[in-house]
């Protein structure tokens, strides 16, 4: 056995370039296997946790791509409002899919007494930029969140008295838009106060404070929990059938586009949802993102909870990784044996058996694998300093090693068995 070990060490040193290549390849595999399993494993765990929290329902966000030139062109279209209404109606009136609208957008409030933390510029350490004059009046740009009754039913929140805010609070009353203020507004405004504001449609509206949220109130929005302490919660006002003037028309268009950015809450799979959205786009002459022919389009983005999609992707990547590892190992083994042919031939000529040659190759491989594991795991642990990965995934490491070792073993065995001793001796001079 000592003889085999001696020759195995010699075998590694003999062509250090090949040994180094094998070492690097296996290190990369060990690193990727760990990284891959750890990151994907964490994602799956997190997703499962989220699913447990939000139940069986999955949230799919719908996002409009109405920006830039498309937006300008779209707004020129005579049938823009009709088609948007048609599209919105299609989304809202589908029984199989719950469609809830919510939109996070700035709100311009004509009042100076806004708390600094609620200003939009506060997060950029520049709250001053959110205070200015509009039409000669001081206005503050604050964090706004437009919701519908349906959205709030899925995300019941409590008021400062600890009671669930009832559905009726999200209704429109006498042309006033109801607003519920986040915890940080308490003490600045009182219930019943009326505030003058301008929405994204650049229409001046009157907001009426109907309640305050309890501290830490949050809603599940776009795959994360949104804390509402600094937000003004507004409801989408209902639209009149026919707009009275251009201002009203524009306002409706903007609101409908905002509503296109809602969420499907359903047990259905993403493919079905996408198919439904595509069909609704077609009916309303709004083309999906892949066919940007007209002024607008809409596409669906999965924001989170489709665990089966993650697992399927994971499985595919795993197969690719395994195939790549097996192929590269076979190539490296062939290169190694081919470059050492004469050396093995000399050993065979001097009484070594093919079994011993096989053992020499496998022991040298095992030594390189051991070094590669140490290197791969060292780099992996090093990368933990810059990422969220934490522990070494032992099963993944073992699996990667088994794949490598078995493919090396099989290819070595095949080549050694199929090659006659005199053919080994005809290898390039050692």
């Amino acid at each position, binding site marked *: 056995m000592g003889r085999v070990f001696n020759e195995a060490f010699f075998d590694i040193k003999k062509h250090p370039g090949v040994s180094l290549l094998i070492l690097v390849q296996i290190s990369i595999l060990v690193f990727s296997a760990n990284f891959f399993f750890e990151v994907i494993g964490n994602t799956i765990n997190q997703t499962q946790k989220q699913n447990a929290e939000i139940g069986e329902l999955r949230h799919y966000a719908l996002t409009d791509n109405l920006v830039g030139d498309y937006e300008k062109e779209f707004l020129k279209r005579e049938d823009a409002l009709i088609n948007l209404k048609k599209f919105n109606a299609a989304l809202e009136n589908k029984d199989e899919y719950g469609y809830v609208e919510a939109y996070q957008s700035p709100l311009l409030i004509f009042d100076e007494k806004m708390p600094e933390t609620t200003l939009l510029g506060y997060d950029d350490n520049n709250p001053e930029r959110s205070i200015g004059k509009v039409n000669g009046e001081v206005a503050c740009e604050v964090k706004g969140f437009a919701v519908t009754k349906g959205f709030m039913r899925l995300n019941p929140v409590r008021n400062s008295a600890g009671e669930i805010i009832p559905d009726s609070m999200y209704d429109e009353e006498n042309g006033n838009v109801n607003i519920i203020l986040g915890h940080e507004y308490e003490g600045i405004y009182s219930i019943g106060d009326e505030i003058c504001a301008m929405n994204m449609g650049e229409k001046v509206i009157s907001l009426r404070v109907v309640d305050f949220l309890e501290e830490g109130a949050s809603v599940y929005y776009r795959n994360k929990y949104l804390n509402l302490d600094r937000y003004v919660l507004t409801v989408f006002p209902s639209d009149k059938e026919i707009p009275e003037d251009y201002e009203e028309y524009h306002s409706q268009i903007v609101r409908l586009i905002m509503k296109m950015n809602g969420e499907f809450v359903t047990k259905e799979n993403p493919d079905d949802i996408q198919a439904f959205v595509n069909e609704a786009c077609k009916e309303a002459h709004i083309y999906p993102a892949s066919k940007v022919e007209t002024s607008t389009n809409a596409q669906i983005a999965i924001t989170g909870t489709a665990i089966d999609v993650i697992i399927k992707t994971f499985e595919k990547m795993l197969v690719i990784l395994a195939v790549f590892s097996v192929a590269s190992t076979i190539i490296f083994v062939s290169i190694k044996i081919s470059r050492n042919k004469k050396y093995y031939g000399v050993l065979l000529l001097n009484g*070594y*058996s093919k079994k011993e040659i096989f053992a020499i190759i496998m022991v040298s491989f095992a030594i390189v694998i051991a070094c590669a594991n140490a290197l791969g795991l060292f780099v992996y642990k090093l990368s933990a300093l810059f990422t969220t990965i934490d522990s070494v995934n032992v099963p993944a490491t073992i699996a990667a090693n088994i794949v490598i070792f078995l493919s090396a073993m099989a290819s070595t065995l095949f080549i050694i068995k199929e090659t006659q001793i005199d053919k080994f001796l005809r290898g390039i001079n050692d």
Partner: protein
Amino acid sequence: MININNVVKTYYDGMNKTEVLKGVNLTVSEGETVALMGRSGSGKSTLLNIIGGLISPTKGCVTIDGEETDYTDTNSLYKLRREKIGYVLQDFALISRKTVLNNVTFAVRSKAYKEKGYAKVKSMLADVGLIDKLESYPFQLSNGEKQRVAIVRALVDNKRILLADEPTGALDAENAERIMSIIKEKVKENNMAALIVTHDKDVAAKCDRVVNIEYGMIRSGK
């Protein structure tokens, strides 16, 4: 010592059949050095490879040291090469990254040769004038020195047979003569049997007997 009885070797390549050896009979006795001469393709190296157990004959049998070689048993063939046969090839078959000493010791199996830090191996290398080259690498040696290393390796572990394929093919006349003297001396000293394939008549003349092979058959000197 070596007894070759009616050995036939045929190669098949699809429908093509090439008979390289056509019933060869040859005996080499203890202490005898026999030169095997013939043109290229006459079957000299094939015969050497069959005796050494590297390839098997299609027909016939080979007896070495009283034991018939079983070509169906790979383990006994390894044993044969390990215990009884030493090879010397034209290209020396040295391992370039091993020192002179290591080029010999990797082939050593017997305790007697391993004792006292391979003292016996060192003494054999000293015997052929290589004592100051133990730590040298093959690229630092002349062709004559390389072949002397190969001869020592072929003799360790008290091998019984020395098979040499053009051992002087890459050497000048002076070195060729020295190598032949060493081979003859060691064969006599160790009571071995040597079969030397050569094209060189001068080399053949130094052997105890010359055997000519033509078209796969022994023509003279059986």
